């Protein structure tokens, strides 16, 4: 072994050691390429494992369809069946239920976070109802509202509204007192403080709250559709189970996940566009 070769060997070794140390630094730094590499590993390994397990014959297709089966199923669902219709009705229910929650929760939450008596009146009750499982309300909702669209929307509303009120109130309470007092010393009235300071200051946090509760709305939608519907993605999943179409169950779950992901990304995009001061440094 020549002197040179062993020298470069040592160099490589120390380079690897440095790289290793840099990657595993607490709150360390990762370049964009490195991030994508690790992200790809995190996505591909489970996918490959699924693919391998499904195609190896270890597990019955009835229990574990392969990725290809699921893709084909989505295609047929789209071509021969009413995928768009199913997705559309689900999106519609989520959106209406969610909007009904937001329209009521945002003003109420702002008032709770601003005025102490309103907090004292509403917060304990809201806190209590929040711990009642929304799903357990389904029989009651069916009794009161019936089994049409209203019941699905009502369940989404029950699942998101009370959480949203408390989160909005908390967002509003986080507005620094100095911002409010500065406005008071400049002669702002209460109405102006709420609309020009508190609401403006809390807006980014409010949009995040809406984004998070949107995710929960999807969970309640699927539950509602499995129990009390004859359309929608949740209902499609339930029906697939009856016919042992495991690939369609997979397809439904993945589609719901995808739609949720897209909505989440749209919220994030809106955040970046609406609040440029948070992203400029």
């Amino acid at each position: 072994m020549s002197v040179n070769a062993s020298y470069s060997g040592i160099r490589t070794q120390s380079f690897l050691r440095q790289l290793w140390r840099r990657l595993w630094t607490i709150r360390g730094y990762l370049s964009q390429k490195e991030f994508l590499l690790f992200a790809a590993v995190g996505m591909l390994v489970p996918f490959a494992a699924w693919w391998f397990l499904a195609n190896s014959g270890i597990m019955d297709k009835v229990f574990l369809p392969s990725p290809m089966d699921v893709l084909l199923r989505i295609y047929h669902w789209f071509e021969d069946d009413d995928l768009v219709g199913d997705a559309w009705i689900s999106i519609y229910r989520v959106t209406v239920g969610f909007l009904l929650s937001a329209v009521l929760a945002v003003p109420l939450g702002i008032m709770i976070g601003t005025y102490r008596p309103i907090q004292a009146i509403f917060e304990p009750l809201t806190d209590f109802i929040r711990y009642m499982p929304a799903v357990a309300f389904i029989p009651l909702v069916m009794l009161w509202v019936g089994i049409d669209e209203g019941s699905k929307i009502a369940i989404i509303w029950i699942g998101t509204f009370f959480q949203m009120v408390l989160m909005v109130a908390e967002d509003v309470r986080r507005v620094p007192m100095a911002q409010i007092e500065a406005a008071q010393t400049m002669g702002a009235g209460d109405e102006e403080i709420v609309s020009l300071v508190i609401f403006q200051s809390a807006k980014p946090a409010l949009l995040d709250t809406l984004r998070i509760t949107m995710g929960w709305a999807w969970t309640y939608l699927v539950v509602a559709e499995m129990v009390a519907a004859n359309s929608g993605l949740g209902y499609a999943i339930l029906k697939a189970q009856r016919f042992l179409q495991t690939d369609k169950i997979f397809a439904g779950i993945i589609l719901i996940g995808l739609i949720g992901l897209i909505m989440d990304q749209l919220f994030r995009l809106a955040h970046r566009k609406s609040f440029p001061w948070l992203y400029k440094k």
Partner: protein
Amino acid sequence: MDNKIQINAAGKVFSTDRQDVVALQDVNLSIGANEFITFVGASGCGKSTLLRCIGGLETLSGGEIRVNDRVVDGPGVDRAMVFQNYSLYPWLSVVDNIKFSRRLKVNREGATSSEVEVASGRADALLSLMGLAHVSKAYPNQLSGGMQQRVAIARALLPKPEILLMDEPFGALDAQTREVMHDLILHLFNLEKTTIVFVTHDVEEAIYLGQRVVLMAPRPGRIDTIYEVPLPDKRDQEMKLSPEFIALKKQILSRIRETSGMHTNQDLLERMTRQAEDSVSI
């Protein structure tokens, strides 16, 4: 000197569920028009409370504060306030922060278009006076701490307040930036002819800026001594090294130590040093 602010037997008690804190007790003071008065004292002696009572953000439990001979019963546009930090609006650009008060009803109602124009010109003037013209479109979080406080001061000055109340406005700045801000605020004081009430815990700052320094003492919060500053009205940094300045600084510092009831326990220090030495020798 005409009286701008008159404080008569002012008292303030904070009642919490556990105990009552006497933040101010029998405070009496006259502050003249176009006076620069500073307040120092150990933390918790009621400096902020007094300033907030003048500003109308806090109500007295006893006595009264008069501004232009009218009893204070809430905030008013005649008194502007500058806080230590977090008071700027991060969603507004620098210039919009400064112009914020113009969006409020109190300033819009009855304002003629020529008045609005003057105000707009004033915003520009303040921007360049404060050295902010080149960042007028930036957001506050893009600026350094010193620049942010300049924005806060400009915003407070925009509606031409008669009184400027400042609560440790430079407390979060580094020493160099603070010196620059001192000379800037003195310059503004000469230009704007406002009355400035300035709270700080930094004795040097209090002497350098103030025509009078009010020393407050804690438990209960009260005025202890009022010092006239033996320096000419036109200040410069060199004066900090003058014998008068240093003598006054010594006097105030030792008085703060006496009133705060905090003294280093010399015995305890020595005992700890001995123990440390012993453990090393073992």
